Every structure is written in structure tokens, then in C-alpha cells.
């Protein structure tokens, strides 16, 4: 039961994008079409889930027992970079059009603060192995929800009469703010 709560907390109540400001770059960059937003979300969720597992293992099985705590950031980011490289290769082989659609944003998953943030939170909150898996999945799903919602709104915004100075990044950020305001309604539903 608690695992479901961790999942829901990461996905909705404490959404990585709208509550913790993680993953803003792709959030602004890839959210102009629902299809590419959703694919980006899926790719990120995949990387996040595996990152959760691998970083938990590295931290608790290698770094801690050997007093190598200070190598935390270096090892995490190297793991993430390699994972993204791997996912990129797989997508290239499996679906060329998807690869082209995601373009430059695939390698940019590496610098997605949400992924490193995920690994750091797992260490901070002292989650167990099982906790971490559900946390990673929840965070990814939450990111996907946020970015897809955003894409849906932006597709409508394209047809609206936005003042020229606000087109693009400004109106996206303001919309994100309103989304964040809406998601605040979930606060306190799950206290984890």
C-alpha cells in the first residue's frame, strides 16, 4: 500500500516538474506537440526507472560500505549519461522516425535535472530498493503527465491570440504556473 502512495506522491502530489522545478528544459522545449511530448515522457520514464534502480545499488552496495560517499555525484551522472546513450542506440535501431522526431532532445535527457534529482532524492529520503523503483516510476509518469498536459494546452494556444512579446517561452511559463497552481490542490492528500 505504501508503495502505491510513494508512486502517487511522486506522480501527482509532489510532481517533479510542477512542485520541484525539475525537468524544465525539456518541459519548455518538447511540449509543443502532444505526440513528441508523450514520447519524450516515455523515454524519460524509462531512463528514470532504471536510474532509480542502478543509483540505489551503486549508493547502497558500493559507495556507502566503502566510505566513498563523496563520489556520489560523479558516479550518478556517469550512470545517467551511459543509460541515455544506451536508450538512444536502442531507439535508433527500433524506430527511425521516433529517433528523428526526438532529435537533439534525446541526448539532452542526460542534463534533465529530473533524473539526477531523482537519484539524489532517493539518497536523501533513504528509500528502500522497492521504494526507489516505485518512486522512479512515479516521477517518470508525473513528468509525462505534466509535459503532455502542457503540450495539449500549447496546441490550443497556437490558435489563440497571444501578444507577440509573450509568444513562445513566456506564455509557456505562465501556463506552467497556472498548472502548478492547479496541482497545489493535491497537496496534503498523501503525506509521504
Amino acid at each position, binding site marked *: 500500500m505504501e508503495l502505491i502512495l510513494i508512486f502517487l506522491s511522486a506522480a501527482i502530489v509532489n510532481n517533479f516538474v510542477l512542485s520541484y522545478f525539475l525537468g*524544465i528544459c525539456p518541459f519548455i522545449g518538447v511540449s509543443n506537440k502532444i505526440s513528441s511530448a508523450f514520447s519524450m515522457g516515455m523515454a524519460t520514464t524509462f531512463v528514470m526507472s532504471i536510474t532509480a534502480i542502478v543509483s540505489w545499488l551503486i549508493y547502497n552496495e558500493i559507495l556507502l560500505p566503502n566510505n566513498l560517499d563523496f563520489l556520489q555525484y560523479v558516479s550518478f551522472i556517469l550512470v545517467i549519461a551511459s543509460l541515455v546513450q544506451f536508450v538512444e542506440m536502442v531507439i535508433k535501431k527500433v524506430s527511425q522516425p521516433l529517433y528523428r522526431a526526438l532529435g537533439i532532445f534525446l541526448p539532452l535527457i542526460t542534463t534533465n535535472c529530473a533524473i539526477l*534529482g531523482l537519484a539524489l532524492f532517493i539518497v536523501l529520503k533513504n528509500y528502500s530498493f522497492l521504494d526507489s523503483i516505485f518512486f522512479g516510476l512515479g516521477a517518470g509518469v508525473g513528468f509525462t503527465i505534466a509535459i503532455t498536459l502542457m503540450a495539449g494546452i500549447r496546441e490550443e494556444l497556437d490558435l489563440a491570440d497571444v501578444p507577440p512579446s509573450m509568444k513562445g517561452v513566456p506564455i509557456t511559463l505562465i501556463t*506552467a504556473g*497556472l498548472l502548478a497552481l492547479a496541482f497545489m490542490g493535491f497537496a496534503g492528500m498523501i503525506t509521504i
Partner: protein
Amino acid sequence: MANKNTLSYEFVKGLWDQNPILKQVLGTCPTLAVTVSALNGIAMALATTFVLTFSSLIISIVRKIIPNQVRIASYIVIIATFVTIVDYVMKAAFPDLSKALGPYIPLIVVNCIILGRAEAFASKNSPIRSVLDALGMGAGFLLALFILGSIRELLGSRTILGYQILPDFYTPWLVMILPAGAFITLGLLFGLVNLYNLSKESKKKSEIIKQYLEQNQQDKINLAEEN
């Protein structure tokens, strides 16, 4: 217009022309997260500038030795090392600030500004230029964070840098301290920057059109005189 090749331009361009946040839209995660107060914004900017400057320096020095295929991995290790140093120094010497900035210090590792500058500049330029570039970008980052932090702190807690500016009867806008306020304020800030740029562009355009019309008039007069 500053000569784009002088050393001083390498520094100055980071302040406005190529301001990492306001022009290049990089590093938005920490910008939104830590600007609940001007002081936190300044601290974050200083920490980021430290990492940016030293990473750029080292990467520029060794840029010719690192083989192409492993350059991203090398840059990442170098950046992560400096971030770890900053994190430990802050925890040891400035524990209150360290707690206030929380997990966003280690997130400097994935701050797109640093890897972006390393890839776009430090890997292709001399150490001196790279350091100036880094310092300029850092200064621009500091400027943007200070402005955003001050606005949010002023409207959300009546103070700037801890000094109360607005009178007591002003009810603080709590939303400014919350994520929603951060998004909206930054969005409006970007909008303002765009407004300024667009008006500059339209001024230039009307200048050109005016000149064209004047020239046209002049040509007509000349033609009439000839006939």
C-alpha cells in the same frame, strides 16, 4: 557596438546579448527553485559561477588532449568534481545557506549552462577567453537570479536581502514564494525582455523604411529635375 573580438566582449556578452537565462533559456531549473529570496539567488549564482569558471578553465587547458568520443564523459566528470567540492565547502563553512539551497547545489552538475558553455566555447577557445566567457555567463546568471529573487522576495515577504522595504499594511502575495509564482514571474520577465527586443527591432525596421522612402523621394525629385 562593442567589437565582438575583444577580450572584454567575451565577458560582457554574458550580461545581456547572450544572457544564459534571458536569452539562451538555459539553467531554468535552479532559477525557478532558489529565487524565493534575493540572497539565495545570489548564493546559487556564485556557486554556479565557481563551477562554471573552473570547469571551463580546466576543459580549455586540456581540450587538445581529450579524444572526441570521450569528451562529453570527461567534461561531465570534471564538472561533477567541482560541484562536489562546492557542495562540501558549503556544508562545512556555510551550513545555513547549504540547507536553504538544498538539493539544488548538486543539481548544478546538470545545469545546462555549464555543459553548454563547455561544449560551445571552452572546448574551442583559449583558457583566457574561456575564463572570461565563464565569468560573463556567471555574471549574467547572477543578474537574472538577483532580479527574479528580489521581485519574489519583495512581493512575497515585503523584504529584499532581509531588509523590509514594503510597509506592514501590504499583505504579502504568498503565491510568489510558491512554484506557481516562480513560473509566472519568470514568464512575465521573459515577456518583458521580448517586448524590449521586439520594439528595438520594429524601430530598426521603421528606420530602414523611412530611409528607403526618403531615398525614393530623392530619386523622384532627381528624375523630375532631369526632365
